[in-house]
């Protein structure tokens, strides 16, 4: 397996870990609009990531 894919995997895991930490700590302080926008951005982020890996041929 290419090293860059391993690094990509680590990067994605750390990003998800960071988002999880932020969600656990600060989501209760978000306004309703902030929560909705964050949810939409999370969906969009995973959608774009899916299209990216699809383009790579995974």
């Amino acid at each position, binding site marked *: 397996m290419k090293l860059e894919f391993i690094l990509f995997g680590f990067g994605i895991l750390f*990003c998800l870990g*960071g*988002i999880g930490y*932020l*969600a656990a*700590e*600060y*989501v*209760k*302080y*978000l*306004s309703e609009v*902030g929560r909705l*926008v*964050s949810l939409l*951005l*999370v969906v*969009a*982020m*995973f959608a*774009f*990531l899916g*299209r*990216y890996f699809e*383009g*790579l041929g995974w």
Partner: protein
Amino acid sequence: MATKRINLFLYLALACFLSIVIIFIADGYLGTYDTVYITAGEREEKVEPDFWLREDRTWSSGVDWGEKVKFKYEVDNRWFRTYSAEVAVSVWHSQEKVQDLVAQDIQVAPFDKERLEWVVDTEELMPAEITPEQAYNYTLIIKRGEVERKVVLYVNPSYPPKVPLPVR
């Protein structure tokens, strides 16, 4: 060209991720938050800042008759400018003010905290006609500028110890 299009999705995903982080920081972290600590007897209750974010929420706390309740009010200024406000604390019963406890201007430096403390003596606040066997309620109103926090204090009745009946 195809590679550029593929990388575009990666950049968009990264942009979404950065936007999420910015929203959490700007909307979830930055701002002014207050925490109330209520110490009655041997227990301390902590009212977190997110409790007050929902409208018209009132915290309730039970205390024993004659007990002194210690309050700590902490203002956390998570912003780049100094926060100034007047803090006024008063005790109310049935929509009437009973006593003013605190009236103080505070100035909180950027990314710093300021703490106010006061004590509520339930025995001192009780009307003369109320006996220890009766329960009573007070509302503590904390005003910080335009912000208002309410804490309801339920004073539990105190029953005298039962005297054992003499043995015949």
